[in-house]
């Protein structure tokens, strides 16, 4: 150790006596205010440990002097919110679907609430704007597999489709090819027949008569004589311009061969009835309702 009182001639600062390869360290202490601030933060931290929940224990954590918890805080805030919104929400809870549609203020409230809830729960499949995707219905249009009235929408929301809920909507597009009911050639024929129903071009030389026969024997039970579908069974209208899975021949062959069974979860039990009601109103208003 060198002499502690050595003073660096250039800066006039004493050195600490440490030297490495001839380079000496100047003794420049931290400014006092900095040190004091540092000590204050230490004291502060200790106080914090005592006052607030801070340390994990084996199964839980220290509770802090006043038993503060941010979870309780959130609870209080939610209760406050409930109080503020209470009256309006209560009105929403008791109003019938038709009443809500008639009262502009309630309609606006339900739409606003429905929109947020839709974003949180439905947008994953139907998209934020409810435009849907292949296999996921577009909720903005006027084609409703299970019906587009307020009540019908509410029911679909509550119990879902093939959701496993006891009251779920159930219907099935059979796998005619896989199950060996129809031969591949018949499937191609009926696929073209269905395209013709919808006003789409057909494969040259396809036998329309044979198609009609296959259709009459296998499809009318669900899709109806005129192929207009049946909302009771979720059977789509095959004569319109909206196709959930696509209308090209290959897709139709795939549909007829393997069947389709899209699933919509049941929201009863996951969301409260008022929220589901608001969502039904929101979805209903997207396309102007039916």
């Amino acid at each position: 150790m060198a002499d502690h009182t050595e003073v660096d001639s250039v800066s006039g600062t004493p050195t600490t006596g440490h030297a490495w390869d001839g380079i000496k360290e100047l003794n420049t202490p931290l400014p006092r205010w900095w040190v004091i601030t540092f000590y204050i933060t230490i004291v502060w931290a200790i106080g914090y440990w005592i006052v607030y929940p801070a340390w994990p224990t084996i199964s839980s954590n220290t509770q802090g002097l006043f038993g503060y918890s941010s979870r309780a805080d959130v609870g209080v805030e939610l209760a406050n919110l409930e109080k503020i919104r209470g009256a309006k929400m209560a009105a929403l809870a008791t109003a019938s679907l038709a009443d809500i549609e008639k009262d502009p203020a309630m309609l606006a409230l339900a739409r606003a609430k429905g929109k947020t809830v839709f974003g949180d729960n439905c947008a994953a499949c139907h998209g934020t704007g409810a435009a849907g995707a292949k296999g996921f219905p577009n909720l903005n249009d006027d084609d409703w597999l299970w019906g587009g009235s307020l009540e019908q929408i509410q029911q679909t929301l509550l119990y879902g489709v093939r959701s496993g809920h006891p009251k779920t909507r159930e219907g099935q597009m059979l796998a005619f090819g896989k199950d060996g009911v129809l031969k591949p050639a018949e499937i191609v024929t009926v696929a073209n027949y269905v395209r013709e129903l919808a006003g789409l071009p057909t494969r040259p030389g396809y036998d329309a008569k044979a198609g009609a026969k296959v259709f009459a024997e296998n499809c009318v039970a669900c899709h109806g004589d005129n192929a207009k579908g049946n909302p009771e069974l979720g059977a789509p209208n095959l004569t319109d311009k909206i196709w959930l899975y696509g209308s090209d021949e290959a897709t139709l062959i795939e549909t007829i061969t393997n069947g389709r069974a899209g699933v919509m979860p049941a929201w009863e039990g996951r969301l409260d009835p008022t929220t589901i009601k608001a969502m039904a109103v929101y979805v209903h208003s997207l396309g102007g309702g039916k």
Partner: protein
Amino acid sequence: MNQTVRPDDLKPQDLQPVDDYGPLYAAHKKVYPQSVSGTFRRIKWGLMGFCLGVYYFLPFVRWNRGLGAPDQAVLIDFSNHRFYFFFIELWPQEVYYFTGLLIIAAIGLFLMNAIGGRIWCGYLCPQTVWTDLFYAVERLIEGDRRERMKKDASGDPMKLERISELVLKHSIWLMIAWWTGGAWVLYFSDAPTLVKDLITFQGPMLAYVWIAILTATTYTLAGFMREQVCVYMCPWPRIQAALTDEWALNVTYRYDRGESRMSVKKAAELRALGQPAGDCIDCKQCVAVCPTGIDIRDGAQMDCIQCGLCIDACDTVMTKIGRPTRLIGYDNDINIHRRQEGKPPIYKLVRPRTIVYAAIIAVVGGAMVYKLATRSLLEVNVLHDRNPIAIKLSDGSIRNAYTVRVLNKHGFDRVIAIDIEGPANSTVHVVGADSVTPDRPMIVIGRDQTEELRLLVTAPEENNPAKSIPVKFHVTDIGLGVVASATDNFVSP
């Protein structure tokens, strides 16, 4: 000294860094401005009284807007999204008025600068106004420059008399600061009610927080930071230095007349001999009164806030020694040279720069006045749905959805009808429409309200536009027959 230096000429010592400019920040030296009287001081008192009077009392001025509307002349009503200024009522959709005001304010500052340098700083800047007020309090309690310097230097601050002086000064400062913060929050709520609530501790937390913040800033900025703000914190001196030109009237020491400095006696002797003598007697009065503590005789400098107090000080001296006044005055450098050459001074306040600034102010101000005068009390804004942008319906027709916002700025409810001009044979549907006459939906909009509507426009298949065609939305007030319109597009998928 702009000699060209060739690299070969450089000697090693030339390569040492040269600290020619001084440090960027000089340690704070307390300034003790002396009291002064004169023209500019009077102007400053007048403007101070006016500005503070407006600031402190404006929230209490009432303005009758009819039943149910706030009767405060100037009110920024955040919770209801309204701004009231006497007969003007602005909605959030009209924030562009504030853009206009900001442009006018900025160009106004430029114009002031082109005319009189940093006069905004010297007379109207809140920092100057409040600092001046704080100085007045200080002077009243602790005495003028000499006394204050003596008291601060005596190193004996513990005498009871001194302590009570300081306590008194700081309490008055804090009171002014507190009132400053208090007046601020009054602009955001009904002033008399808020005053009552604040006193009875019923006021909103936010109000107390803002009062505390503004009390703290006023107290520190006007009581302690003072000229430091003007020299180091404010960006304007830098900006104005880049904007100014040789015609701007700046507080200028006429060194042609003042130099060389000498005593009154010596000057008299020289003059008796018919020789030239400087008028400045180096009494340093101009320095003593300067609130930023500079010597204007060193020439124009960034620290000078153009307050003109040194002019008053020197004029007093000149009058006393019987020499012409305005040895220091609002002048420009050009004139010093012209006088030296025996030419008459010239002033050019109307020049391209000022004309352009004034023109911009006039145009922006005119546009605002026009917009205000023709402000419509029924308005409509349209926003096209982005997601999805267009919908195909089962019969092949195309539907576009829009969010339409209708603003009723009237003081009464109105029934409005909506119709569109778009793709041929298209129909319009308003979600939740109150009633539908044969051809168009109708909606009631409450007074002073906006209503957001969801509009669905459907065009039949055979009229599907190839791409995007404009669609006009007309909102008609059934009662008054007033129509407001907005345009958007109708798109096909």
